[in-house]
């Protein structure tokens, strides 16, 4: 394969504008027809706007097609069959991936996808990555939480498709007091302060509407006289690295739990209370 080829797709990316418009129209006609004939929700939406597949004859006709708002998605996803309502355009058997939006503007919007959808989405990202210069011998780090949130999964798959070595982050980002927190940032601070032992414990909790975050650390015997400095340094560094204020508890060496297998140093008690 020619790594110097500047285009991921030398055909589509160099199409004359008129041919590109023809292709866009053809693709829109195809997808609109598909949605109209396979999804009860989409058909009802388009009928209410008085537009049918045979009405799409030119690109300008696309203006007649109503857009699907997030609020509509949230509404239909509350209907049977849960959680997709009547929006699916394929049989449920074809749905292989379930993701959702982040929920920053309200209830997350569910996103059911087929394997074909993800192939297509990764393909789209391949155009981006290739044009930015990513090539099969590159190593790609994706600082993303790797959870049910839909974002960046396609970037991950695209980098794999290109042949890159993909490295993802291993910790779980969570939100505390409205701030995104990577538990590894706390570990980094604790490990960077002289006089502290290896063990530490973080507890996130909730009382009423107020969230709290507490950090317990062990001070080494030889640093017992530096507790005031350690406390101040911890508070400053944590504030700087994580933008949060912690309840600090400085304990004697050996007082925190030890683990025989994988240590559980970050404890989130918020969900446990609501269960």
């Amino acid at each position: 394969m020619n790594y110097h080829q500047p285009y991921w797709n030398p055909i589509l990316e160099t199409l004359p504008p008129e041919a590109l418009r023809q292709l866009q129209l053809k693709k829109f006609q195809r997808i609109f027809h598909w949605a109209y004939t396979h999804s009860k929700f989409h058909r009802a939406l388009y009928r209410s706007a008085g537009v049918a597949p045979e009405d799409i004859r030119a690109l300008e006709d696309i203006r007649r097609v109503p857009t699907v708002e997030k609020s509509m998605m949230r509404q239909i996803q509350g209907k049977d069959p849960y959680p997709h309502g009547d929006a699916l355009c394929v049989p449920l058997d074809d749905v292989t991936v379930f993701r959702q939006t982040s929920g920053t503007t309200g209830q997350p919007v569910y996103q059911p996808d087929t394997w074909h959808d993800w192939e297509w989405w990764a393909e789209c990202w391949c155009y981006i990555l290739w044009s930015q210069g990513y090539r099969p011998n590159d190593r790609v780090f994706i600082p993303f939480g790797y959870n049910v949130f839909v974002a960046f999964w396609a970037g991950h798959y695209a980098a794999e498709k290109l042949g890159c070595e993909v490295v993802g982050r291993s910790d779980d980002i969570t939100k505390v007091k409205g701030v995104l927190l990577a538990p590894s940032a706390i570990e980094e601070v604790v490990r960077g302060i002289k006089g502290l032992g290896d063990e530490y414990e973080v507890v996130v909790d909730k009382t009423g509407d107020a969230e709290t975050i507490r950090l317990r650390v062990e001070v080494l015997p030889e640093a017992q006289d530096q507790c005031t400095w350690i406390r101040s340094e911890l508070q400053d560094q944590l504030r700087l690295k994580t933008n949060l204020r912690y309840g600090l508890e400085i304990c004697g060496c050996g007082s925190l739990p030890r683990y025989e297998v994988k240590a559980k140093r970050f404890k989130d008690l918020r969900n446990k209370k609501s269960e």
Partner: protein
Amino acid sequence: MPPVIDMNRLHLNTRSARSAVEEFKRLGEDFPAVARNAERMLASLKMIEISISDVMDLEDLEKGKTHD
């Protein structure tokens, strides 16, 4: 100099590949390892069809044998 790409040949190969993979799917009805892998192959093949066959169907490119 831009690369010469034989679109007709790619188009024909895409068609025969689809036919072969769909045959895999049919034959694999009682063979999940064949049927499901064929399903994934179809998804990958679709991406090649998007790049090749869809463009070949465009009126103004139909007569051209190569793209350069």
